[in-house]
């Protein structure tokens, strides 16, 4: 295991350093950096699998000269699971990047991009295996900073700089809260090692426990990007190069989920009141619904995907929150079920979100625009990208028999099993969360019908789309790898569930994989086989059989006749792209029905001809929706801060004498205090 760990870390480190040393030939630097990252990611995958299978956690520590800091590493099942998730996506990203970064040749320093890419992967790997608070904070900060530098890759654009700055501020607010969490824990245990934090005999006072939970929730929540801390996500994720967006949206935000599970189930040993679970559940439900609703209104493909991360983090939190609630009421098996559902959705989201970001990257690569309204008809021009994107879309819309369906199904089951809980309030709240999840699911379906339909179907809406060509092979392989993952995790949950079961068994102590797999693994049930069961391989088989049945039915009735091509009927006119439904038009009914949430404003200005009011010279149509949280929560803070800064500017008069006087007064005051 130590060898694998060595291989992974050295691989990333080499990828970090070597591109900076070789001569400035972009092609060499590209292959070197991403090749090394790919090798290291394979090592990471193997390490994750060995960590999950190992009988006891692998531990290693290197002491440092700084007090309280040890470079301690621990690979328990939870860390291994997240390491596996990160490494799988990293591997795909490394392959994809080989082709994708060629579009930056000559514009961006390839050595720097490749080196930062490796540094980013290295820091994420270290975050999940760190076993010391101090060490964790260092690598966490590294991860945040490197991702900031990657976000501002195209820093010549002003919106990219804005996104980067926004991200930098938000992530540091988060880090401050995380620091506070660890300091509170340190205060009680007197050490920064995670071992000290997780001592079961350590009895934090209740108030302190609550403080730790809340600071952790805010601190890690800013990284996870749940509502209302999600505002940076739709700016920062799209601004980065697409393979980086895939990593940020697919796996970086999962490190926060990792940390939350670590804090609640590991540090507190699962001893927490029921309302913690309820808070997590409520945040999850609100994030899921609002995330998908804002996604629907986005026509920038990458922003749309970024908002879907808010949604999916919400779904993951629904699973984990349900698990926490069950745990606090003592239903250990159901708690394990909720946690497994959350973890399953974590790996699924990592895979299909990265796939979709790769797809968006390929569209950007081929058409040079992220605006969906300028796509159209791309399925014929880019069949590979189209097929992979379709698989990703079906998965994220949670349709059977793909992986998103299985994990959402598990989340639904853990919410439905709420009837076991003694409290009436919880009995009702969990099904309502399930109804919100149902709404989320079907809105996600709408959103991806829009994203795929407007981008890939009908006629090209711009000359960019008309001249698009299929992307190079490395990008197709990267996407195909993840698309295969979507199908595999959907059709073979019997292979995935035991893996996650090892994680929950180590956290909660209840091992339920045998109960969850009925009929020799062919059917999946939520602990209680009587309550419900599902078998995705059989469903897949029946789907294939019924489709074949339909084809046979057609063949029987002389359906072998070839079809004829004809123009789409457009009331006698020639069909043009302007007749097609646009993305804006597609979501108009939804905007209207949910106008309470969107608060849309429409402005229509018309200049008429002077001669007649019946002829318009010029019309201007303006439309936007109100980002509620940004307006009421963030803007008020910003207004307050800038107001305060404005007031405080009085002290900054620009006169050197005055500043010297300040120093003198301060000195005198300090001397007086010292006396």
């Amino acid at each position, binding site marked *: 295991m130590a060898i694998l760990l060595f291989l992974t870390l050295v691989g990333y480190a080499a990828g970090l350093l070597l591109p900076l040393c070789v001569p400035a030939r972009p092609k060499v630097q590209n292959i070197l950096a991403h090749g090394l990252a790919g090798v290291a990611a394979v090592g990471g995958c193997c390490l994750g699998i060995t960590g999950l299978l190992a009988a006891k956690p692998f531990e290693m520590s290197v002491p440092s000269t700084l007090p309280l800091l040890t470079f301690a590493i621990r690979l328990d099942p939870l860390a291994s699971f997240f390491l596996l998730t990160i490494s799988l996506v990293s591997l795909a990203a490394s392959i994809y990047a080989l082709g994708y970064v060629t579009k930056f040749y000559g514009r961006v320093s390839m050595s720097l991009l490749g080196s930062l890419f490796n540094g980013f992967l290295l820091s994420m790997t270290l975050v999940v295996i760190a076993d010391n608070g101090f060490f964790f904070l260092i690598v966490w900060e590294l991860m945040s900073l490197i991702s900031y530098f990657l976000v501002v890759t195209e820093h010549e654009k002003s919106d990219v700089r804005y996104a980067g700055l926004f991200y930098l501020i938000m992530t540091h607010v988060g880090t401050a809260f995380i620091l506070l969490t660890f300091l509170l824990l340190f205060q009680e245990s007197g050490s920064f090692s995670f071992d000290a934090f997780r001592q079961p005999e350590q009895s934090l006072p209740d108030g302190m426990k609550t403080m730790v939970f809340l600071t952790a929730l805010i601190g890690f929540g800013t990284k996870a990007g749940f509502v209302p801390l999600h505002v940076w996500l739709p700016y920062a994720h799209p601004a980065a190069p697409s393979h980086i967006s895939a990593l940020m949206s697919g796996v970086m935000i999962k490190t926060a989920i990792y940390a939350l599970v670590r804090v609640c189930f590991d540090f507190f040993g699962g001893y927490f009141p029921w309302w913690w679970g309820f808070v997590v559940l409520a945040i999850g439900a609100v994030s899921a619904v609002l995330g998908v609703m804002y996604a629907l209104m986005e026509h920038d493909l990458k922003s749309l995907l970024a908002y879907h991360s808010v949604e999916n983090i919400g779904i993951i939190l629904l699973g984990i929150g349900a698990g926490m609630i069950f745990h606090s009421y003592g239903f250990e098996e159901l708690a394990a079920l909720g946690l497994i559902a959350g973890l399953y959705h974590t790996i699924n989201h990592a895979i299909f979100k990265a796939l979709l970001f790769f797809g968006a990257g390929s569209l950007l690569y081929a058409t040079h625009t992220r605006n969906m309204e300028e796509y159209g008809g791309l399925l*014929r021009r880019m069949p590979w990208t189209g097929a992979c994107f379709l698989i990703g879309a*079906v998965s994220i*819309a*949670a*349709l*059977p028999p793909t992986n998103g369906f299985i994990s959402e*199904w598990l989340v639904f089951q853990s919410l*439905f099993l709420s009837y076991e809980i003694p409290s*009436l309030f919880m009995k009702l709240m969990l*099904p309502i969360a*399930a*109804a919100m999840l*149902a709404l989320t699911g*079907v809105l996600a*379906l*709408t959103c991806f*019908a829009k994203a*795929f*339909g407007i981008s*890939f*179907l*009908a006629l090209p809406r711009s000359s960019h789309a008309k001249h698009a060509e299929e992307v190079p092979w490395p990008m197709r392989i990267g996407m195909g790898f993840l698309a295969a993952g979507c199908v595999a995790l959907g059709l073979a949950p019997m292979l995935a569930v035991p893996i996650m079961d090892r994680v929950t068994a180590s956290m909660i102590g209840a091992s339920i994989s045998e109960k969850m797999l*009925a*009929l020799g693994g062919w*059917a999946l049930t939520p602990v209680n086989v009587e*309550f*419900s*069961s*599902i*078998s995705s391989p*059989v469903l897949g088989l*029946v*789907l294939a059989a*019924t*489709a074949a*049945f*339909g084809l046979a039915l*057609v063949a029987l009735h*002389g*359906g072998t*006749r*070839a*079809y*004829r*091509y*004809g*123009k*789409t009927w*457009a009331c006698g006119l020639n*069909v043009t792209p302007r*007749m*097609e*439904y646009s993305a804006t*038009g*597609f*979501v108009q*009914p*939804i905007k*209207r*029905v949910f106008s309470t949430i969107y608060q849309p404003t429409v402005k229509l200005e018309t200049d008429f001809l002077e001669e007649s009011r019946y002829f318009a010279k010029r019309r201007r149509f303006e439309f936007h929706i109100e980002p509620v949280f940004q307006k009421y929560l963030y803007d008020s803070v910003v207004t307050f801060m800038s107001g305060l800064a404005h007031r405080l500017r009085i002290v900054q008069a620009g006169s050197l004498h005055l500043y010297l006087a300040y120093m003198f007064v301060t000195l005198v005051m300090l001397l007086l205090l010292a006396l």
Partner: protein
Amino acid sequence: MITDQSIFQAIALTLAQAIVLISVAPAIVGLIRKVKARLQCRQGAGIFQPYADLRKLFRKQPVVSTTASWIFTATPYIVFASTLTAGLLVPVFASQMPLNFAGNILAFVYLLALGTFFLILAGLDAGSSFGGMGSSRESIVASLTEPAMIMAIFAIALAAGSTNLSTIVHKTALLEGIVTDPSSHVMALAALFIVTLAETGRVPVDNPATHLELTMIHEAMVLEYSGRYLAVMEWASGIKLLVFLTLIANVFVPWGIATRVTPVALSIGLAVYVVKVAGLAVLIGTIECMFAKLRLFRVPDLLGVAFILALLGLLFFYILRG
């Protein structure tokens, strides 16, 4: 469950159910049309007219739009397969279906959603404004029905202690392990009925007999289809209607369904089933004559009512059970 049946019997039962669904569906569509015609003082076509229509469509050479991609030609089969697969999860004439283990009510809902997803894509594919309009409207109706449907079904599932449809039907038919609670049952039934009207594109949500751009939803999406593709599409939408009627008939009044696999029980089950769905078809035909189609933006109110009813059903269940 599959355990007490031989694999042979299981396959035979599943196939028989598939054949019943496929063959009865056009007749139900014909029956509704006939009822509507008679109530409107018209003679109307015979009940079996849809079979002749399908036969005719199958023989015609289809025309495919030059702008369309493979999604357009694949969609009819995907819609057919997903609808029929969902139908196989609902017990039709025998309460213990072998495929019960393969999916519960959520699988049923999401399988239908798979069909909806591709239908929406197909609507966009031809590039005409009508298709896009239908797709856009379909998606809003689907968004509002699904939460109501999930809540209604959960309210029913609670009483039977299961979300697998065969188990619910079997237990209700035998009154075994059921907490009898008519009020929550009735509310869930009302909610599910509204959902059925919306999901299958009937008045007052959609009008299946129209081709006016102001009113159509489902028809707008399939406007570009012709020949065998249209036939498969029409057949699939007939099956969807029948599956929903089956759901209502067998989940709420399962009595008469074959609880054991014997020739006598199965024949009685089939006969009772046909009578029940025919009754529901007459009811739907009557409703379509009595109500006008709602404006699209009034539909959310109707579906909101369905959701609230389902939620109340759930609340009543907990309160009345104590």
